[in-house]
């Protein structure tokens, strides 16, 4: 996360780290149910075998395992069948854990949006992750406040790519606060006005280069677009269909 700050334990209890030997942390991920995690499809390029991965939850400092930490193996990875590597569209996957997590103050699922429920442009939301900070990779979870950007405004930043309805943009024109490599698959969450619960609207997906020159907003997988597909994958895997 560029332009963010160190987060505190328990502030983002749905954030998880998708890890694979020997690299360790590869991507972010988001807890949406006791056995279910979301991340982006491009994290599995060339490594979509479930047994290569594990998911670490309830952690703040990657280098300091804590008592609140829980680690799970991956039972299955379902990458969206329309994910295309070239244009990074349909960049989402559902990950089934090998056993349920224990819900604690530090490990809790985020809410999924209702079908059609989109964040309003110019509202402020949060991105989190252990990705590149512009000058180094952090150990402690970083958080950054970003503004939702309309698709038309976002398209003007990306001549070479088309911003599709499966994408969501957030950040700032100058890219002052942005996600970066290693944040992929992590959450873009907005606090709901009533009740103060947090809803997952985006998964960090792509953007312009971020660790040498900051340019333009970040692009996120639009979770609202995929809500029916997510529920269906959970149903099919739960009942072995």
């Amino acid at each position, binding site marked *: 996360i560029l332009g963010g700050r160190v987060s505190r334990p328990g*502030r983002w209890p*749905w954030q998880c780290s998708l890890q694979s030997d020997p690299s360790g942390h590869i991507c972010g991920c988001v807890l949406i149910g006791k056995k279910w995690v979301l991340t982006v499809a491009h994290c599995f390029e060339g490594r979509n075998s479930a047994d290569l991965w594990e998911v670490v939850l309830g952690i703040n400092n990657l280098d300091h395992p804590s008592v609140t930490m829980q680690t799970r193996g991956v039972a299955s990875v379902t990458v969206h069948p329309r994910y295309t590597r070239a244009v990074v569209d349909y960049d989402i996957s559902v990950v089934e854990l090998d056993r349920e997590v224990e819900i604690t103050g530090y490990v809790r*699922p985020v809410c999924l949006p209702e079908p059609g429920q989109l964040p309003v442009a110019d509202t402020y939301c949060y991105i989190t992750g252990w990705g590149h900070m512009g000058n180094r990779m952090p150990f402690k979870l970083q958080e950054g406040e970003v503004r939702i950007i309309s698709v038309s405004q976002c398209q003007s930043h990306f001549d070479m790519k088309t911003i599709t309805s499966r994408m969501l943009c957030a950040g700032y024109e100058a890219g002052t606060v942005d996600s970066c490599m290693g944040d992929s698959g992590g959450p873009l969450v907005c606090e709901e006005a009533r009740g103060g*619960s*947090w809803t997952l609207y985006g998964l960090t997906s792509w953007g312009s280069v971020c660790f040498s020159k900051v340019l333009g907003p970040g692009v996120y997988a639009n979770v609202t677009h995929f809500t029916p597909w997510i529920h269906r994958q959970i149903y*099919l895997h739960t009942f072995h269909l």
Partner: protein
Amino acid sequence: CISTPGATLCDTRNNCSRCEPITLELCMNLPYNSTTYPNYLGHSTQRESSGSWEASLFPALVQTNCYKYLMFFACTMLVPKCDAHTHQRVPPCRSLCRNSKERCESVLGVVGLVWPEDSDCNQFPEDGHNVTCLLPDPDVDECSPSHFKCRSGRCVLSSKHCDGHMDCDDDSDEDNCGCVERGLWACPGTRQCIKHTMICDGFPDCPLLEDERNCSVCNDNELSCNNHQCVHRTLWCDGKKHCSDSSDEWDCVSLSEGSILTVFRTAVDYQVCADDWTAELSQLTCSQLGLGVPASVALIPDPPGVPGRRRWLHVHPDWRQRNGSALQGLLEKRGHACYSRKRVSLQCTKEDCGLRPAARVYKR
């Protein structure tokens, strides 16, 4: 070095650079087709090049027509030619670099950007008799595959082709914008174009879903799966997968009128007889619907004088042995109606989500 699985790790004495095919879409029309890394911009892989700032900068700069061979020069930097014998990269000639920089650097200045710092032309050899360096052939393509070539010869980014705005100097980017001219399929009733591969692929793309209509011809006693396979009606929503995409078991259970449990068995709506209904079945139903946990359950008498014969499904006597099955697989038809004539009414409630108790504020 590129350490591919199984390859012996190279030691410092021998050079392990090797040629690899060009996969960067931007440079797929070069007079050479293999490259080697690191390139002249400090990128270590083609993947890094494809997400690099330069891979966005150069195609945008080419649109300004500042230099005829700019795209060719950019590709010799992004994906340098690999010599098949020495496995070494072949540099662009210094003159090609100088011409590109002299003609185009000022254009970048206008928009407050700078020429890529890694591209110092002095690092490249002067073109001469026995020097190996790259110069463009006269007929080299000035546009990349990521561009649309205007009739006038200029290049505009392919995202500008048929986007409703005149971008070419001769407006040719907005000619022949019909779907057919572009080798695409026109969604009936709209101007939207989709690729032919998207027709009948199980994903609706046209606003009125025409691309997924008339995709299969099933018999009267069959139904079409989401992937347009035909499955016998009696197999629909029986708890076992018959369509290869399992779509015969999608959306089988619903709470109609807000709470009345309904099952779409053999593609017809059935009520569930409340005899033998249990709390575990309520739990299973809410979970299967993705609605969390049961909030309330009621057994509703069937209103008298209901038109036509109501269809009932009954809880299978050995449903407990069918663990792992969806609700529709735990129910069965019987030759008799529901003795209690009571239906199941269920209200589910979402489990806690999006809360963060540990981030609580502590009053001081």
